[in-house]
């Protein structure tokens, strides 16, 4: 104990707020009897700190403690200390720095403080939620005329909201508008600032533990209990059995459980930042494109893909040629589509097949960073025999229908070449299964299935439908952000689950034959007393006094 008195008082100064926070006294402090209690508390701290100082000094440098007490007001605990002027108590950093440096430091600290402000973060989250809601209410990605019609100036929504608002604020493309992205960026900054200034210091505080050495201190915990005729060692064994980490030193016991629950929120924030970073990478560095390819044709990957941002760099794999070997649709017995399948072959520059795979919805093809999805289908041609001649390929066009259903039509002109009004046979198809045929007058004739080998006679013309050639709708993309985002997803799931854990701390001390137990927890405040009562019931009661004495002498 060579510490001079001045250092000692200083350290008490540093310690007071910390220890206050740590033990969470204010929590059960009755407001109507303040003065006497406060004095007592300070007295107690003096005692407590004197014991603690040498131990702490050896472990942690004082500067670190300054950081802790100086850090922005903690979110979880000690809000009341904010008013009591914690910031004034802590001295400023003593490093000799130039004025500019100091100014920089101060502004950066101020910015950090503002960003890590909880109400601001909550406001940002509300803003994002609101913007997203607006984004779903206003139709996205339409032409300016659409908005001018939808939100006309003479009938503004809510009395002021017209199409000019929509277009100036960029609400026609909400999820890529500067306002939305800016709010997200602000939230990301808040996340980082909060992690740095609040969460990490909180964990540092939670990790520092000490024995409580007076019964009063133990009683002041959120949960406290007195066990007559018991030994603190038995309690330790019981707690260990319940999964607690137990520290015993003489008559004092400290135990904790679920410390990971304190760390996890940091992980949640970091995972969110990781996801945002990955999404940014996706937005700036990916290629996308979609293509409709009739069965039997090919395309080059690079021709289809369009860059989405300035970081998009084409790779070798863009030279790959894709050949659609076969496109087929499978049906349920009721006639509805059950699956689309496309058999694809990939060829490199030398014409060598590098990969072949049948893709379907939910089962894309991946090659060299490129993913090919089955997303759509179409009908490209009808193969027919006309009066046993052919086969002819009839081009098929998609007819405009309102609704999601598709309808394809084709037309086979008959006779009188060169005349003004050409008549012919019309064929309509909803899918690749059946084709409906109409005669020259437009009257219904019959339905034929492709490949049924069943000719149909229309005004003396024999038509046999050999095949309906489908086209596959493929979507291609490269996305360098996916691994990052997935890593973020994994981390977020894990840390959110861990965050449910409640960090429980228990102090106990042997007071004669009685064990005084106190504890607190940060989340499961309702279950904690029940669990404690359950555990304390399992602490054996010492009946014989002679049994009790040796155990005490052992511990001391």
């Amino acid at each position, binding site marked *: 104990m060579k510490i001079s008195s001045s250092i000692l008082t200083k350290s008490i100064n540093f310690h007071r707020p910390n220890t206050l926070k740590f033990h969470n006294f204010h929590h059960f402090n009755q407001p109507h009897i303040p003065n006497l209690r406060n004095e007592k508390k300070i007295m107690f701290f003096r005692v407590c700190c004197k014991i603690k100082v040498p131990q702490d000094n050896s472990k942690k440098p004082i500067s670190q403690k300054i950081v802790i007490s100086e850090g922005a007001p903690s*979110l*979880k*605990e000690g*809000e*009341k200390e904010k008013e009591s002027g914690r910031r004034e108590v802590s001295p400023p950093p003593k490093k000799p720095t130039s004025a500019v440096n100091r100014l920089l430091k101060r502004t950066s600290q101020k910015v950090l403080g503002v960003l890590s402000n*909880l109400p601001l*973060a*909550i406001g940002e*989250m*509300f803003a*994002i*939620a609101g913007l*997203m*809601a607006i*984004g*779903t209410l206003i139709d*996205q990605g339409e032409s300016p005329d659409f908005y001018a019609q939808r939100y006309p100036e003479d009938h503004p929504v809510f009395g002021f909201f017209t199409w000019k608002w929509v277009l100036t604020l960029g609400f026609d493309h*909400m*999820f890529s508008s500067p306002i939305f992205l800016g709010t997200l960026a602000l939230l990301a900054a808040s996340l980082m600032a909060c992690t740095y200034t609040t969460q990490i210091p909180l964990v540092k505080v939670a990790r520092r533990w000490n024995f409580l050495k007076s019964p009063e201190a133990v009683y002041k915990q959120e949960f406290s209990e007195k066990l007559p005729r018991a030994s603190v060692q038995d309690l330790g064994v019981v707690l260990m059995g319940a999964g607690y980490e137990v520290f015993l030193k003489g008559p004092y016991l400290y135990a904790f459980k679920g410390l990971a629950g304190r760390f996890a929120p940091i992980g949640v924030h970091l995972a969110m930042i990781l996801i945002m970073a990955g*999404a940014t990478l996706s937005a700036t560095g990916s290629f*996308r494109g979609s293509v409709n390819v009739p069965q039997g044709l090919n395309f080059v990957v690079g021709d289809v893909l369009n860059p989405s941002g300035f970081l998009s760099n084409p790779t070798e794999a863009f030279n790959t040629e894709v050949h659609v070997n076969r496109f087929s649709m499978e049906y*349920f017995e*009721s006639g*509805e*589509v*059950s*699956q*689309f399948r496309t058999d694809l072959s990939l060829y490199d520059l030398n014409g060598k097949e590098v990969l072949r795979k049948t893709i*379907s*919805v*939910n*089962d*894309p093809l991946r090659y060299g960073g490129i*993913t090919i*999805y089955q*997303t759509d289908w179409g009908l490209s041609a009808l193969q027919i025999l006309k009066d046993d001649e052919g086969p002819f390929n009839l081009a098929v066009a998609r007819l405009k229908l309102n609704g999601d259903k598709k309808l394809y039509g084709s037309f086979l002109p008959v006779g009188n070449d060169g005349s003004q009004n050409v008549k012919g046979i019309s064929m309509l198809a909803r899918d690749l299964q059946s084709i409906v045929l109409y005669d020259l007058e437009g009257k219904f004739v019959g339905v034929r299935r492709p490949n049924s080998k069943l000719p149909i006679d229309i005004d003396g013309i024999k038509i046999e439908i050999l095949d309906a050639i489908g086209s596959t709708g493929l*979507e291609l*993309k490269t*996305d360098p952000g*996916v691994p990052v*985002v*997935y890593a973020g*997803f994994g981390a*977020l*799931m894990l840390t*959110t*689950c861990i*965050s*449910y854990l409640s960090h429980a701390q228990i102090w106990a001390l042997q007071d004669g034959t009685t064990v005084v137990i106190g504890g607190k927890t940060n*989340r*499961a*405040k*309702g*279950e904690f007393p*029940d669990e404690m009562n359950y555990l304390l019931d399992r602490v054996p009661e010492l009946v014989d006094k002679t049994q009790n004495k040796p155990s005490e002498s052992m511990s001391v």
Partner: protein
Amino acid sequence: MIFSTLEHILTHISFSTVSVVITLHLITLLVNEIVGLYNSLEKGMLVTFFCITGLLVTRWVYWKHFPLSDLYESLIFLSWSFYLIHMIPSFLKKEKNSLNVITAPSAIFTQGFATSGLLTEMHQSGILVPALQSQWLMMHVSMMVLGYAALLGGSLLSVTLLIIIFQKDLIQVFDKRKHLLNESFFFGEIQYINEKSNIVQNASPSYVRNYYRSQLIEQLDHWSYRVISLGFIFLTIGILSGAVWANEAWGSYWNWDPKETWAFITWTIFAIYLHIRTNKNLRGANSAIVAFIGFLIIWICYFGVNLLGIGLHSYGSFTLTLN
């Protein structure tokens, strides 16, 4: 045929049991607490739970896919989740907790809605759109619905808390009548408090009553917090697995599809709730208000988007299946 009959039987048994349970609940609340009756209530809930489980399994076996492909099935699953949330605490702890008062009526309401005439045409659909044929269906939808159930339960507890806090104002609004009973089942809790406080008021000075009140508020606050954080975990897993699935099926892990966006809005709102909880000054009424907003938003997310039938998530929409 046998399957549909079995389905019918199970639906009817569970629905009628749960109706009886609710009636008995009301009787016990209004008249007196009878311990024997309370036990039989729990048994009734257990029977219903098994009936619904049986119903889901039947559908699973018969249609050969996880019974979560449309709105009807997801509603049944939602009510099953309510039962689950109802059952778990009563298995862990024998004592009564405030959660029951919320989960039981919620379960009957969702089930009643699912079996009611509004959705009868949807019972028989039974085919899976290509995009739904994936292992992710089970993971994504079950997690989402479990999350909705837990969040709904938790936020209803918060709503109860709000009602208790603003009880006096409410009573003034409702013509200064002491009991705002019969308003809905959700108000069962207040009835309970009113009963309690009436008894206490007759016997003891007001500060004891205040003590009970504040204790109850604290309990509600705590339980809604715990249940919401549990639901938040499910929602997170649900959204993320949905994103992974979307990257397999639609070509992007995030499409800003209306349903997706609203799920994210829900997530954000409950994230706000959890953050408000960390601040002691903002706790209580403030967090409960946010939970109430969240409650409304879950319904928008769950039904509203489907009602409009827009976006990529339009499988379970009314229009499509009614066609």
